[in-house]
């Protein structure tokens, strides 16, 4: 009880209240503007939060992260443009509802579903994080190495159809992290004799370049669109009542979101995709999906809002980030000397409870704000793209320059910005690079510590948790290989109209030889030559 009271004490300061307000309202605005996303905003504000109190900084960043998905539903539903990348599935059922003349219903349903997902995942965070923290002391160097490896493999394997290049980009991230002076033998690695590389490449510089600057370049090289937004009439509270009529879809989608958020390396896309597919398969009217089904909208919005708080579970309990945005927030923890892990739960439990309460209050604030201010918020969608690009470019400068006041940092960020622009044009993922940098760094340190103690390779998986993680890695790899094999088989069937017969040249020749010698083959050739004579006989 006094834990709760001391947590409230932390929250009842004016700067925390201001942070809650800024995080919720700012997050919704950032999500509502298509072209800006939580990644851009968090990358820009991250260095600014270093000088603030840890709870204030984290509240702003988490608020932006969580509320941006509420705001992203607005343009997704009204103008078929997802406000943030994770709201893409919302357009499938949200926009047809608007086309039918029910925009208010769609919006209120989206808000209620998001609220339910957000609160559900905070409750799960409160329940699971201490459990994982109790298990966390069993995580030694080997286990953390294996968990980070599992996360990296999952993030690569999750990109279906692009697994190879995602793997190459993840290895690029690992490589970028090794540049600079290494801390054990004090040797230089890949600095090419340059001073500015001697300190290594900062994660925030890469993040700002790959997310914020590349987005600015995309917007600057794009064209402005003419957007017409119609006026909204009617009440917004009907969504809560409608949500209560679909408890099963909402519950399962929220659980998928929590599960995918907790597993390091997986994120909103998988959660949404799985809950949408589940909702469609178990619906009484699956033909409605993609044409304005309320269940589809609930599934999409609940699952993507359930991810942020759940992604905090592995971060708080083990210090391993669940996905790219929480990886950025890890640096806020380190800057303030708040080291996540089981120590956090033993020594700073009131900080953790304050964080939980802040997340809950954020969801409530956002819902209240949206229920009253949606009409005005809709106008924000009208900001022209290229002007938005100019604004993001200006804001990114602050983000990079305030880190170390270094012009070479800004040059690196600009270089990564162009690289990120190229990746975006080619539809290639940038997230593996970030996770490669963070998890690769963790893996190198832990591997060195672990290998010092083992004699044979089997010692590595001696302990139960290490063995479980190792078997999970093997299961994921085997499942991926099986899926690749299935895809290749379906490609072969589409190309050759055969699933089972071999398509190699030797096998084709063998079949032709066998058919040539047999009676059936002679009959077929006779038929073909008769047809040919009849055809050529026409002329």
């Amino acid at each position, binding site marked *: 009880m006094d834990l709760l009271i001391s947590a409230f004490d932390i929250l009842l300061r004016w700067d925390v209240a201001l942070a809650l307000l800024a995080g919720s309202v700012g997050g919704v605005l950032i999500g509502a503007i298509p072209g800006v996303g939580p990644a851009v905003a968090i990358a820009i504000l991250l260095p600014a939060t270093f000088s603030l109190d840890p709870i204030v900084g984290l509240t702003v960043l988490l608020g932006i992260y969580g509320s941006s998905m509420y705001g992203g539903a607005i343009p997704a539903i009204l103008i078929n443009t997802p406000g943030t990348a994770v709201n893409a599935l919302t357009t499938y059922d949200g926009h047809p509802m608007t086309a039918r003349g029910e925009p208010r219903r769609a919006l209120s349903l989206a808000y209620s579903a998001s609220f339910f997902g957000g609160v559900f995942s905070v409750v799960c965070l409160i329940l699971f994080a201490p459990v994982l923290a109790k298990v966390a002391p069993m995580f030694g160097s080997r286990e953390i190495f294996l968990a980070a490896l599992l996360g990296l493999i999952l993030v690569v394997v999750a990109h279906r159809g692009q697994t*190879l290049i995602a793997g190459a980009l993840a290895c690029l991230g690992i490589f970028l992290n090794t540049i600079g002076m290494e801390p054990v*033998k004090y040797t230089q*690695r890949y600095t090419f004799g340059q001073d500015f590389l001697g300190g290594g490449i900062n994660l925030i510089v890469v993040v700002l370049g790959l997310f914020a600057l590349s987005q600015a370049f995309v917007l600057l090289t794009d064209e402005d669109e003419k957007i017409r937004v119609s006026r909204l009439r009617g009440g917004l509270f009907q969504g809560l009542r409608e949500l209560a009529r679909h408890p099963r879809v909402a519950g399962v989608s929220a659980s998928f979101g929590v599960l995918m958020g907790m597993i390091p390396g997986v994120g909103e896309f998988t959660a949404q995709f799985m809950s949408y597919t589940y909702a469609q398969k178990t619906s009484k009217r699956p033909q409605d999906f993609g044409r304005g089904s309320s269940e589809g909208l609930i599934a999409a919005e609940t699952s993507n809002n359930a991810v942020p708080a759940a992604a905090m579970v592995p971060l708080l309990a083990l210090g391993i980030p669940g996905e790219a945005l929480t990886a950025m927030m890890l640096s806020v923890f380190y800057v303030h000397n708040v080291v996540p892990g089981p120590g956090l739960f033993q020594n700073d439990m009131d900080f953790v409870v304050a964080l939980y309460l802040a997340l809950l209050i954020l969801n409530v604030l956002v819902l209240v704000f949206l229920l009253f201010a949606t009409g005005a918020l809709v106008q924000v969608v009208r900001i022209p793209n290229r*002007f938005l690009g100019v*604004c993001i470019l200006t804001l*990114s400068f*602050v983000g990079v320059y305030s880190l170390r006041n270094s*012009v070479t940092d800004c040059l690196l960020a600009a270089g990564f910005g162009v690289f990120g*622009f190229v990746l975006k044009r080619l539809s290639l993922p940038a997230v593996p690079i970030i996770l490669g940098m963070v998890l690769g760094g963790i893996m190198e340190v832990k591997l060195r510590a672990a290998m010092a103690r083992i004699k044979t390779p089997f010692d590595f998986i001696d302990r139960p948790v290490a063995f479980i993680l190792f078997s999970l890695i093997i299961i994921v790899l085997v499942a991926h290989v099986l899926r690749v094999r299935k895809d290749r088989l379906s490609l072969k069937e589409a190309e050759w109209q055969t699933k089972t017969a071999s398509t190699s040249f030797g096998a084709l020749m063998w079949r032709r030889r066998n058919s040539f010698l047999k009676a059936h083959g002679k009959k077929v050739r006779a038929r073909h030559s008769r047809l040919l004579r009849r055809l050529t006989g026409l002329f």
Partner: protein
Amino acid sequence: MTTERERRFVGPRRGQLVFAAVFVALSALLLVMLPEQTAWTKKTKLFAQPRFWPAVALGGMALFAALHLYRLPWKRVSRYDMREVRKWSEAVEYAGWFMAYVIMVPVIGYLPVTVVFVPALAWRMGYRSRGMLLLSVVFAVAVVILFKAVLAVRIPGAMLYEYFPSALRSFAILYL
């Protein structure tokens, strides 16, 4: 006529081959530079060598990128790939604007440079109406006030501020 492999490829065709080829070439180049850029320390196990982890990373990069290049459905660079490369160089122009901004700020000062930069870039993007240019000036001033005065972000005073009289200099260094 598109083949089944091309239809199943995730992402647009333009530029894929160029990107994959350049990526493979760069990772091979970095891998070749491994002995001279990293050190081999004596009396240390393989896993603790400073060369080990970069070798793993670069080897992975080269291997996966080569496999990706091998499995691409296209083997010849087309004119659409070249158009795509030209589009990529458009971003380099804006990176240049960004670097000009970065270099001017420590010389002239955050507020003056921002108030000139934002309308200038808006003008370059094609906005000529007085409303948009006024909006860009307002945005520039708002950003400077938010980050410098409210959030107290670390942006040091400019060289130009040294020439101000002392009272104005301290105000400028703190808030502009």
